[in-house]
């Protein structure tokens, strides 16, 4: 048998993942659940709340992540639901950014659930017609109050279907 030792070591890392399935650990199996066909991701991606960013937003980046089953070792596993994350910078007053999304979220049927450090609504919830519960969070990634431009992240997530 001729086998590259470095690959063998990498293989060992990979084997751990594969064998976890065989180990039948808790947290549900991969076979059932998730987001078949990416339907929930599609639904979330097309939510009107993601259709626009504040007028002065720059560096807009949109990341869509499909549902994924994870099985960390020695812990329980489970489905991570699909997400849509919009990251952008804005030099507008933070209050304006939060109000912009509060209005858009309300118009799109999201229900406010909490407010954050500015006392403004920054979290919402919604149930899509197929019964999928979804959450929406808006938070700042810039700590310095004096920053000329602040970076924000609007994160939407939907629970994966349970098998």
């Amino acid at each position, binding site marked *: 048998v001729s086998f590259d030792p470095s690959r063998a070591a990498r293989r060992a890392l990979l084997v751990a993942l594969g064998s976890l399935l*065989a180990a039948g650990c808790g947290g549900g199996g991969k076979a059932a659940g998730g987001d078949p066909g990416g339907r929930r991701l599609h639904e979330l991606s097309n939510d009107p709340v993601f259709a626009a960013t504040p007028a002065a937003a720059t560096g807009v980046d949109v990341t*869509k992540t499909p549902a994924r089953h994870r099985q960390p070792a020695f812990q329980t596993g489970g489905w991570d639901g699909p997400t849509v994350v919009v990251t952008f910078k804005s030099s507008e007053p933070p209050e304006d950014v939060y109000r912009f999304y509060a209005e858009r979220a309300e118009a799109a049927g999201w229900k406010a659930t909490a407010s954050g450090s500015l006392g403004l609504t920054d979290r919402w919830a919604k149930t899509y017609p197929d019964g999928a519960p979804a959450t929406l969070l808006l938070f700042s990634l810039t700590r310095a109050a004096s920053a000329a431009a602040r970076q924000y992240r609007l994160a939407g997530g939907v629970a994966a279907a349970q098998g």
Partner: protein
Amino acid sequence: MHRIRLLLAALACAAGVAMTFAGTSFAAGTIVFDGSPGTGAPPPTLGPYTMTPFPADPRPLFDYVADVPGPTGAIGLSPLAQHVRVEQGWNTWSNGYLGDVYWSGALTNVITLPPGTSAFYFYAEPNPYAVFTITAFAQDGTTSGPVSVDGFHGAQYFGFYGLGGATITSILVSSPIDYALGEFGISSGAVPHGSYVALGDSYSSGEGNPPFFAGTDGPSDYCHRSPLAFSYVLASIYGSFPFFYACSGATTANFTTTPKDTEPPQLSEPGVDASAALVTFTIGGNDAGFSHVLKACIEQKLKADFINSQTGIIGGWLGLHQDPSCAHSDTFTSSVDTAIDNAFWPVKLTEIATLSVVDPANTSVIAADYPLLFPPSHDDQGCLALRFILTNDDMDWMNVEGGRLDAVLQQAAGEAGVNFVDVRPAFAGHAICDTNGSYLNALSTASGGGGACTWSVAGHCIIPGLPIIGSFHPNAAGHANGYGAAFAGYIASATVRTSHGFPANPVPLPDPPSVPNQPQDGFADLAVHPVTAGSPDCSDTYQAGQQVTVSGDGFQPGTPVQLYASSPGLGDTGEALVAATTANDAGEISLTVRVPLAAAGFTQPGAAAGMAFFDAIGLGFAANHQDDVAMIGLAAHGSECGTIEPLNFVGFTPPVANPPAVNPVEPGRSVPVKFSIAGSNGTLASVLAPGYPQSLPVSCSAPGEPTTGDPTTTNATASTLPADTYNYVWKTDSSWRGCRLLIVKLVDGSYHRAVFDFGT
């Protein structure tokens, strides 16, 4: 005044009653015993509940009663008990109590509580002036254990309370001697959530410390939140029970963006807002994949030990031995370093996001790191729990990597501007197998077994099932004396505090020059299923050439993905490209391929089968390089495990013509018999059935379809590289005349024939 002295009546067998009692069904949630007040006065709270003492009982003394009126309704006593009072029918008690007590003379008494009772306490004192044990059981079997109680001014406190929605319906008390019960207190209130929020991963949830709160141990939520988690230790100190959202398996994404099963992102949960006084968490370990590293190293040692024991000394000479230590691979350790370093930004940004959703001026946010798992001493590492699963080098290296992760987490907390608790000093001397007693589970079935067999081939278990869930996590002592003590010590020593009295968040360290994340490998599972199922005992075991469906995910939608097989027999590299496909819009792939015919599998003498791997490799959405992997068993052809579906024999190729054409050949010449089989990835040795090809004389015009003939010989060494085309160089005999039929039988059992005319 005399103490009541009565002959002990022959009542129910205490043990028998206790067993029956403990066996009754238990509603959702957890019941906790607390006897810490001892002989002292009852505290105003029990667990999270504010308690109400029973009022004085106005009924006549010395009457036998079946109940006692209380603030939330009457409690039942069985059997009947005589109503007496301290110093009025019962001589002594404790903590200065002079109120009502109840004595039945029985060794076993059952107290039935009003519906909705969330907490209840009582005191008990033996009848004789001597020390006896008294044991109390809640209806779910939660017990005080035997408590030594002095019959002379020694009445002891017994308290039970429910968490996670559990209520107390009855308490059974037993002792080898008769005793009095009294000084009751009760609560029917809900848990008074304070402004403490406990977020995080499995080190915060209490993984490995069952029972878990109702709804967090399946069937759709496995967050495994335990009342033994350090957050409840802190709650008992600060009197504010947590909003508890920590979840086993959580990553930073599960804080900010990503629901985990039925649980929304932790920062979107109720109570995670400006009203929070304290937020604690551990996070980052799963982002770094540390648990996978640990498990990989364990499996490498187990497999290496197995293979090395099978191959013996000669195997070592032949280079067949495997290194049991993952730490000896630079590629591996470098990959782990990168994964740990790359956890920095997700953790830092998550901590900044946490500050964004609370009140950073008044909410104390405290992150903690992880303890080092293994003792520094090689002597201690040689304990039974460790020496068979990890090498000394691996344990030393993993402690170094644990320190690396902790440093990354500390830097992230500093730059984010949250408090940071280094728990390593609290765990020092208490690693797994440490001589001072471990604060951590070793390989453990604490939270559930890992199945009967981790890896089986052809029904034979090669590596026994690892009891996995909850292993390498803090035990109850680790939560109390490790994490709990470390957090409490940090909080107590704070010099700058919020308005709530917790440590103020520090001024963030200046951001260092931005360093982008290094390219990172992402690993995930690749599911393999047979197109044609074998026997039920052959899970994950196939034959070379068998068709399987392979599916995976985690790829960038719309990007190409290559599927490779790895096994001895697949050339010098040990790899073969099996197929290529494109990830769909959900980042998933699914395709049907054949296990390469040439795959021989990693086999050992006496083994029923070997093993091989499939890798689907492409761009990941969460990593620069995504590798979904599956390990499969590979059984011999003809085994009951698997089958070979008909091969796609395309036909003979020039210079050999397919029937009904007759191929003229000069006797004694060698004939290159070429043919192709789409998707087979085989070699001649792997595609031909044993003993074939064969040939026999036939009529040139009507050769028929015989299946056997004389063995043929080849005069060339066939290529060992797997491919879909094959070339069998047939050495013909110079004495042959007339027509002969060449019969090629393949491993799928199919026959293919060509006619050759050797002249007259």
